[in-house]
């Protein structure tokens, strides 16, 4: 398979093609003729076709990617603004690979999920979704900080409109809040990017934004590194979102249309954690591993896990509940990244994927329910398992995956994060494990109040069960839930070199600045005790 | 020769400015703006004659822009008149922040 793809020159054109296909489809949609009804039908068909092609093109990466080969794969470098050292450089490692595949898998499903629910200004909606996709994929594959920033902003604008136009009742408030929060962080990041661009190697030399270049030749003072890390941290922490910066998330999730929520939770939240993995830590290891900063970040991560879970427990709105559960899950990712062991980082990557799948599926399911009854409130339902058994079965499976039941994907990721974190940060890992108990509590209680108990609302008695389209769009997600739970080894094999490289880069960068060993595990191996 | 030309254009420009500041009819204000533009054109021509003809190329640009501006501007004025039945600038404050 790999040989066949390489013979086609696959790895030379695939990444630019992935960026261009959505843009081309967006242009086609804008040119569609006909009245509103016909344009709606043709726009969604074009969008679905484009996303399907996009997925089929991207899926070849799974085989063409060779974990044994070091360095970036399928890389493409083209000069862009040479005088400022800016180039169009894209390439992938294992982490980008899985996130790109997650994106291309999710997008066709969101189109199917909006198939009947988005009717007003449908061409604009699908155009924005397509542009958004280019932005997200660009973020995952950019190897140039300037390109990265462009892509980062490119995905912000379409999401603003998607929430603001097709959202719920408080959509304007939510979209503005989302936009300003994100913008605040990303503008500071822009300043930081420009600063590092001008501090590569010789100060007299022209600036450079190439990622590899920055890794090897960036020279900033420790104080500057802290400020720069702070700027990146704020941008990414808002996006994750970490604990005190999370309040945009519940509003944005709740008000966004189904497709918006799915993309937001499933993919866009991973931009933040991906940013930590790719940029914030490897570029400024001495700042990131500073004991105080590290303790603060780990504390925020664990607080996020417990806080998100506890607040989710008391949410009357199911979408809000899922939003707070995202705060909790992404806390695991942050814990895994900053615990900095191979297992914890591998787990963090896996939790990113799992959260994309499970939470995406949860939002799709809520969307289906909302389409039928126009209510997101848990109290509006009850006992509907009897009338919509298929829906009930799928919601239960997806919830169990989100709870982290072994045999589903959720378990493997969280297990690795906690086990890996336990090696370096046992107390934080210990506290985070409590989050697993709370996860069971809030989700089981919610699905009990939705699916079980008495069917006491007359308007629920006539609910339609899932149709073929809805089943079909959920089936790939359910398949992934089981597959990644039972046999995650292929994914882990592909991400392991990238995770190992990340750990090495950060630890090496830190130790070169601090000759003494940075950390001593609290629980020492017995031999070290000298018994 | 140069001094006289500049004096004339300055005079024309001031007439234009005073017209813009004092008149309330949109059309007249518009004409005064054109007057100011042409005052500037005159300066350009005069200087071009002394220092080289490159400056006169700018005049062509200005005339082009002025033509486009006139087209758009008059269209706006007509549109406003259709809506409000007036072109009195004091009664139009759509730009209020």
């Amino acid at each position, binding site marked *: 398979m790999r040989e066949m793809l390489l013979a086609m020159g696959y790895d030379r054109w695939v990444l630019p093609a992935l960026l261009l296909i959505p843009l081309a489809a967006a242009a086609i949609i804008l040119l569609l003729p006909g009245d509103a009804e016909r344009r709606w039908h043709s726009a969604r068909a074009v969008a679905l076709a484009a996303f399907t092609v996009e997925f089929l093109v991207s899926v070849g990466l799974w085989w063409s990617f060779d974990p044994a080969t070091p360095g970036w794969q399928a890389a493409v470098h083209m000069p862009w603004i040479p005088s400022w050292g800016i180039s169009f450089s894209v390439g992938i490692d294992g982490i980008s690979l899985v996130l790109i595949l997650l994106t291309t898998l999710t997008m066709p499903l969101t189109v199917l999920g909006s198939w009947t629910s988005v009717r007003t200004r449908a061409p604009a909606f699908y155009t924005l979704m397509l542009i958004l996709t280019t932005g997200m994929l660009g973020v995952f594959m950019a190897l140039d900080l300037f390109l990265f920033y462009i892509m980062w902003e490119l995905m912000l604008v379409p999401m603003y409109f998607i929430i603001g136009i097709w959202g719920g009742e408080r959509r304007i408030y939510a979209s503005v809040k989302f936009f300003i929060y994100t913008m605040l962080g990303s503008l500071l990041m822009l300043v930081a990017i420009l600063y590092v661009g001008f501090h590569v190697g010789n100060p007299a030399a022209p600036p450079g934004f190439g990622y590899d270049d920055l890794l090897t030749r960036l020279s900033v003072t420790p104080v500057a590194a802290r400020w720069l890390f702070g700027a990146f941290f704020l941008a990414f922490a808002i996006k994750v979102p970490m604990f005190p910066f999370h309040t945009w998330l519940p509003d944005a999730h709740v008000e966004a249309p189904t497709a918006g929520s799915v993309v937001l939770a499933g993919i866009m939240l991973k931009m933040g954690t991906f940013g930590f993995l790719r940029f914030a830590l490897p570029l400024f290891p001495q700042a990131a591993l500073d004991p105080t900063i590290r303790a603060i970040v780990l504390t925020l991560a664990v607080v996020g896990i417990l806080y998100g879970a506890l607040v989710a427990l008391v949410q009357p709105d199911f979408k809000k509940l899922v939003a707070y559960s995202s705060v909790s899950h992404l806390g695991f990712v942050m814990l895994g990244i900053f615990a900095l062991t191979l297992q914890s980082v591998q787990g963090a990557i896996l939790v990113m994927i799992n959260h994309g799948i499970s939470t995406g599926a949860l939002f799709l399911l809520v969307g289906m329910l909302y389409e039928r009854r126009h209510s997101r409130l848990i109290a509006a339902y009850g006992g509907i398992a009897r009338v919509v058994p298929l829906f009930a079965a799928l919601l239960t499976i997806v919830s169990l995956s989100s709870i982290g039941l072994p*045999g589903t994907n959720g378990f493997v990721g969280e297990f690795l994060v906690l086990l890996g974190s336990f090696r370096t940060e046992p107390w934080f890992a210990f506290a985070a494990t409590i989050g697993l108990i709370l996860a069971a509590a809030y989700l089981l209680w919610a699905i009990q109040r939705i699916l079980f108990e008495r069917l006491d609302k007359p308007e629920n008695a006539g609910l339609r069960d899932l149709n073929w389209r809805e089943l079909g769009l959920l089936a790939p997600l359910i398949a992934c839930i089981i597959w990644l739970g039972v046999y995650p080894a292929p994914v882990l094999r592909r991400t392991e070199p990238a995770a190992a490289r990340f750990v090495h880069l950060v630890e090496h960068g830190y130790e070169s600045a601090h000759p003494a060993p940075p950390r001593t595990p609290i629980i020492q191996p017995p031999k070290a005790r000298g018994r | 020769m140069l001094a006289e030309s500049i004096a004339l254009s300055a005079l024309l420009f001031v007439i234009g400015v005073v017209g813009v500041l004092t008149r309330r009819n949109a059309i007249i204000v518009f004409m005064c703006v054109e007057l100011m533009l042409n005052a500037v054109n005159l300066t350009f021509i005069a200087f071009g004659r002394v220092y080289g003809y490159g400056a006169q190329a700018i005049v062509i640009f200005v005339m082009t822009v002025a033509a486009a501006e006139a087209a758009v501007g008059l269209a706006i004025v007509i549109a406003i008149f259709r809506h409000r039945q007036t072109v009195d600038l004091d009664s139009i404050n759509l730009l209020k922040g």
Partner: protein
Amino acid sequence: MIAPALQAAALAAAPHPLSGTAADWVWALPLFPLAGFLVNAALAVVAVARPGPADPSADRHSAPDATAAGEDVAGHGPGAGDADAPPPARHRFASVVSLVGPLAVGLAFALACAIFAAMARVHPTTPFVQTYFHWIPAGDLQVNAAFQLDQLSLTLVLVITGVGALIHLFSVAYMGDDPGYARYFAYLNLFVFFMLVLVLGASYPVMFVGWEGVGLCSYLLIGFWYADRANADAGKKAFIVNRIGDFGFLIAMFLLFVQLGTLDYTGVLAAAPGGLEAGGPVVTVICLFLLLGCAGKSAQIPLYVWLPDAMAGPTPVSALIHAATMVTAGVYLVVRSGLLFAMAPAASLTVAVMGAVTALFAATIGLKQWDIKKVLAYSTISQLGFMFMAVGAGAYVAGIFHLVTHAFFKALLFLGAGSVIHAMHAAYHATHSHEDAQDMRNMGGLRARMPVTWILMWIATLAIAGVPLFAGFFSKDEILGTIFDRAGGSILRDAHWLGIPGGVVLYAIYGMGLVAAFLTAVYMTRLMLYTFHGQNRTGEAARPHLHEAPWLMTGPLLVLGALSAVGGFLNTPAFLPIGPAETLARWLDPVVGPATALIAAGAPGDADPRRGLLLSLIAAAVAATGIVVAVVRLGRSAPVRAGAAPETGIESVLAHRYYVDEAYDRGIVRPLLAFSNRVLWQGVDGLIDGLVTLGARVWVWFGGIGSALQTGRVGTYAWALVVGALVVLAITIR
């Protein structure tokens, strides 16, 4: 350290003695029930997704009148009703399901027997490990999907599939009229699958898959009749309380991995002696966290509260999951980690103390319960306490022995109770009465109506009470006897528990065990007297409808009755001259031998055989006294009727189960919810949002100043422009 390593290498090179026998098929054991689950789940889904004309749920789906549908659901969850209100027709695929469900487990049992035959021939001394694929490979963590077959896991497999198959058969009749018939068997098969994964897994993470998987099935089956809120609540409670235990299991796994770098049983066994300091804090902490996991799964103090509520599930489920198999997983975990516990005497003593306190505590509550299933639930908690007493004292064989016999007689008791409830429910249903079919105050005198059930229930009662020659006598006697021996000499005696010498603790545990055994005899006899003897209190109208269950239900009962009667001969003590002694002990020796030897180190040579005999006599006397006391006390006083005056004093406290549920609710659940709602959500989130909004307001205010300057009049702007231009000119032109 070199010699064992070489030995291990040599063993790895040579094929295991079990390879080439039926044991090669061990992977198929869980696949049978998994296949059953898939078929039944598909049938359940198809039946509801495309309702056929014969499906009773068909008109329910298309019910145009919403209230009609609502009433239908309401009528579907009888308050305490176990046998659901019979709907008009059987499940559409009932015949296929009836075949697939029990057959899947039956085939697994047949395969297990074949493997047992092979193993009995070879009697291997090392575990037979089959590795299938890499499950979680991440750096130096390598968790494989692998099964481990040894005497311990096979014993459990035989119990699970054997008792499981009987209970599946029973369910065919018991659940036959339920509209969720296919769903029921799907869950039940899935449970057997996960249970087999639990006992066959070759590493802690694989065991954890089964561990949480059975919890899931338990959740689904407790809430099987989910239309009733109490049932759904009970299922959720079971899952969450189990999760608290699983938290301990996870932490223990993390500690093990950090310390030993492996999570395979074989790896841990090999690395533990060198990698952990015997009696040190680390191994003790590991064992205590494992114990937390066991307390959750096996319903021990302080996490026992879910099990009584779990009786909301169908009665066969209570028999299979909440008596015979799943709840004993904690005992299995301790035995599986026997070496670790043997290295941590303080933790072992904690296990034993927890078991003893639970056994006594639950037994007292069992004295005052009126719901027949609740009595059995507390009895199960109490018997599990006995098992933990045993494994805590290092009597691993005794613990497993009691696990096996308990599976026989407790499954029998539950199924018998199910048969009684079935009859009661049918009678009340026929007479349209709304009395409680599970309340023993409504029973009485059923002996005449249900003779087969009556005899079999008595056999089980004598077994659980510990009457000599019945199954429970031998296992309970062995537990108490071994604890007595350990108190005489073992590393536990020399250890300390909270500053108390281990010997004292063990003698206290022995005493508590005797009292608990006495109470067991009392409450079980009370149950039998109230249910089967005396005057019938069911009601004049309902009485003629009471009748014995169909043969499909009594058949499995008969098999279990036979096993309860003679199961004790699996492991007769050496001092009793009946049959081959200590069969089970010899069978399990390759697995539990090292740990037992370690814990029993320092025991005084050969114990006096007369002492063993004396201890047996004491145990038998206690059981007999309990039965007599119950008969005398209840025989004198008139039977209490339903709705009689409430108890007072200590009796009231017992009837209300020491108010533990209420304490948990008011002390933990409600404060946590209130804290989350008021402080975290409305407080912290509100504060953060308030600060953000405040920041926004400041900028809006600044913008307002700028906005005020925008009058909207072009004339004003033109003036400003000209003035500005003049100012700039004035500054620049000097």
